[in-house]
Each structure stands twice: as C-alpha cells, then as structure tokens.
C-alpha cells in the first residue's frame, strides 16, 4: 500500500467505500465491456442496497460507467451527464448471497447487437475494491494493477502461454487466478500485471485460437487525474464471439 493511499486519494465524497469504491467498480465494469455502454443495470446488495442514495452510490456507479474516476466533480451530476451521453440505467436491490455487504452486480450493454457483460464486485472499505465474477466466471481483480482477463478453452498450456507473452513484454505478474466451468470447457484467467501489456502482445493473445475473449483493464486505484471520458480503448476486441 502506497503512502499516497494514506493521504489520498483525492476523491468526491462522501464515502471511500460507498462512493469512490462504487465508482471504481463501475469503471472496471465499463472496461470489461470494452465499448461505450448504452444501458446499465445495477443490482445493489447489503449495505449498498440500504444506503445507496445518501452516499451517492447510485451517482458514483453511473459516473464510473461513464468513465469518470473517483476524483471527478462531475460525479455529483452523473445522472444529467448520463442522459446527455445516451446512457440508460436502472437500479434494483437483491440479496446476492454470502458476499461482502458492499456489493453490486453490474450488467452493462453496448446496445443494439453489441456486447453485454455482467460484473460482480465488492467495495472492501477505504476505497479498495475487488471484482469477483465476470460473466459468471470467478475472477480476482483488485483494480490496483492493470489486469488481463482471458476467456479460453480449458486445455493444457494456456496459462503458461499467456504468462510467457506477459514475460516477453517485460510484464511482472502480481496475481493470477483461473477457474473453469468444467474440464475441457471454458475457463477464465485473470492476471494482474505491474504495467499494461503492449498492444502487440494483446493483439497476439487475442489471435490465439483457444482464446475467445480478452480484455485489458486499467488500474483504477492510483491516479488523481480524472481520466479522459472517451470509450475505453478496445484493448483486445472480442475475438471469437462474446464472453458468455
């Protein structure tokens, strides 16, 4: 944990967990989608369900979906910005089971025949977050590092191959997690890397026949500078269909 996490981050209030953390989770979901979201559905769980309005959790989730970072003063008026940007959104509450009390299921779609994703995340306190599921697959993404998500066929050597490409690009793997649906079926690999993977490496990985979908998510913990609000660079366009 950096010294700048103790005196910082610079953020729009009122709550590091319920506002900044919620914004980061939605930012990650936006990057999982990899396109400009047109519709967002947020299923709020636990404390998120109970206190979203007073904490601005709802505004922060919409703001993150729009690509705003936690220090962006536009968070306060996120609903107006969403209307202007053509983003429709809805909130609902549900018991999502035995998970962290500050959790939200985010279902984003790019509209039309575009991609849609579902991302389950929790705000752990003090602004730290964890994405624990993407499209139903267990993943481990903290937002503290750049992360690579790869949906692939469960067969020998995939993790080694991805790891070697990361190594060739001088990337250092901070965490790695992989879970499969069943032997020989689809599996999701999540890998957190100290710095972003170069475009050519992303393109190469995306071209592998056994990798069906790949996304690179930026680190969202660091950075006080409000990032530009344009659509996330399509780091690895959907290769062979979507992630479901």
């Amino acid at each position, binding site marked *: 944990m950096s010294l700048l996490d103790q005196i910082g981050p*610079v953020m729009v209030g009122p709550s590091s967990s319920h506002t900044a953390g919620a914004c980061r989770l939605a930012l990650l979901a936006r990057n999982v989608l990899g396109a400009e979201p047109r519709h967002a559905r947020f299923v709020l769980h636990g404390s998120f369900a109970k206190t979203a309005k007073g904490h601005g959790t709802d505004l922060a989730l919409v703001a993150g979906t729009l690509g705003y970072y936690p220090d962006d003063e536009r968070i306060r008026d996120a609903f107006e910005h969403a209307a202007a940007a053509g983003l429709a959104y809805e909130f609902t509450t549900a018991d999502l089971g035995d998970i962290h009390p500050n959790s939200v299921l985010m279902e984003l779609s790019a509209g039309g025949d575009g991609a849609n994703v579902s991302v389950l995340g929790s705000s752990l306190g003090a602004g730290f977050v964890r994405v624990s599921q993407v499209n139903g697959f267990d993943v481990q993404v903290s937002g503290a590092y750049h992360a690579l998500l790869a949906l692939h066929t469960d067969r020998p050597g995939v993790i080694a191959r991805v790891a070697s490409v990361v190594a060739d690009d001088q990337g250092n793997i901070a965490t790695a997690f992989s879970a499969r649906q069943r032997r020989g079926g689809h599996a999701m690999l999540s890998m957190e890397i100290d710095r972003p993977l170069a475009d050519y490496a992303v393109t190469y990985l995306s071209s592998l026949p056994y990798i069906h979908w790949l996304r690179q998510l930026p680190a969202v913990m660091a950075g006080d500078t409000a990032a530009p609000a344009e659509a996330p660079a399509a780091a690895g366009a959907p290769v062979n269909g979507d992630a479901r």
Partner: protein
Amino acid sequence: MTLADIMVYQGKASDLVLQDDLGDDAAARSHLLTTMLGRVGEMRDSIRRGLSSTAPSRTGMVGWNAKTLNDAPDALGAPLLKRVQAYAMAVNEENARMGRIVAAPTAGSAGTVPGALIGVADHLGIDDSDLVMPLVLAAGIGQVISKSMFIAGSTGGCQAEIGSSAAMAAAAVTELLGGTARACVHAAAQALMNTIGLVCDPVGGYVEVPCVSRNAFYAVHAVSAAQLALAGVESFIPPDEVVYAMAAVGRMLPPELRETGEGGLADTPTGRRIALKMAR
C-alpha cells in the same frame, strides 16, 4: 516498519518513512513529494469551499456548520482552536455534499489531518511547502497502523478511522513544530490511546452525524497530542502496543457499532426517522 523503528531514529521521522518506502529511488521520491504538495492544495481548496458554503448534504443533516463557526465571534479568545475546528468541519461538510476532498486516511475522517496541520500552519504563518514532509510522516503512521488493523469503521469502529487520522495528524503537527522522531511517535500514541473504544454509529449509515463535528473534535485532539509530545510527555504504553490494543478492541465491538447504522446515535428516534426517510 514499526512505530518503535521510527521512535529510535535520530533524524527526521519523515525522512525514515520516505527511505523505508522508496529507498533511494530519486524519481519515485520526487513524484511522491510533488503529488503530496498537490494534495496540500486539494486540502486547501476543500477547506475554502467548505468555509463558504451552506449547501446541505444529500440527507440534509449537515452543510452549514463550518461556515456558522467560521462566521461566529471567537468567544474563547482561542483563534487556533476555532480555526482548527472550522477547517476540519469544512472538509467533512464538503465531503458530505459530494465535494472533492483528500481522504486521510478515509473520507469520513478527511477533515482531521488538514484541520490540525493546515490550521496550525495558518495560525503560525507556515508555507505549504513545509507541510509536505509532515504529510509524508502522517502517511507513514497510517501505513504502520493499517498493518495491524483495517482502517475502516466497518471493521474497527470509529476509533480505527478517526483514531488513525488523529494519530497521523498528531505526528505531522509535531514534526512541523520541530519535534523529534520520538516525540512524533509519542504524539501519535497519545492520540490513539485516547480514542480507543470510539464506536462508529453514523445516523442512517451516512458520513454526516456525528462524523462532521467529530472531525472538529479530533483535529483538536491531534493538536493536544502534539502539544503533550512536544513538551516531552510520553505514552507510558509503548506506541506499538497501543496500536495492538486498539485493534483488539475493534474486534470486540459488536456489528451494531461498526458503521451499520444500527446502534448508538443511529438507533435514536431521530436517527431511525432519518434512515426511514432516506430509504424511501
């Protein structure tokens, strides 16, 4: 690093924190110091906005307190006290109305460090550039505490949040006023040991009541701790043991008193009414 390590250091406490965190990496040091100076500016901005606004928060419970105090006559003839309290509340009222603040270490406790440190600096006419290293020390103290417990009201109660911020602020003010590393650590320990047991019972679960006025109180608490330490008053319990004690007390707190909005002030007739109103 432990508080004992900082305590025995012969140089400035913040130098040791910087060395421990970044070693001799000149680029990383320069980035950190530049960013920290930027954060002093962000803190100042939030104080300025907070002192001039009376716009209510989303729940309507707070929003005018900092300006009310700032505009009031100094009844006690204690301008430092008034300034520290007003600055601290200004930051937390900005936070409550979704303004931009610097979490220190959390948003709910964001007013304590700037209230104490910038309050004292303005009282004495000290430049912002001289606040950078004290803030580095504050961050280092926060880091040490967070190794023993998770700094969040939901896990450790308010003591973990405001106790940490007060300890960080106390150390920072002590260094700002020329205190030794030993004095800085004892200031932090005094601030912590006199916060142990404080529960997190925010009305409706929102970071407003008692959070806004609590930051005013604990910014002053931090300045008191610095005053004791600068005079040579020390914590009888070794500082690291104080941190462990606080972490242990945090684990003993029932969930109702850990940011759930279900106990204490939240569980008053007025508190329950606000919770109902906002849930609608």
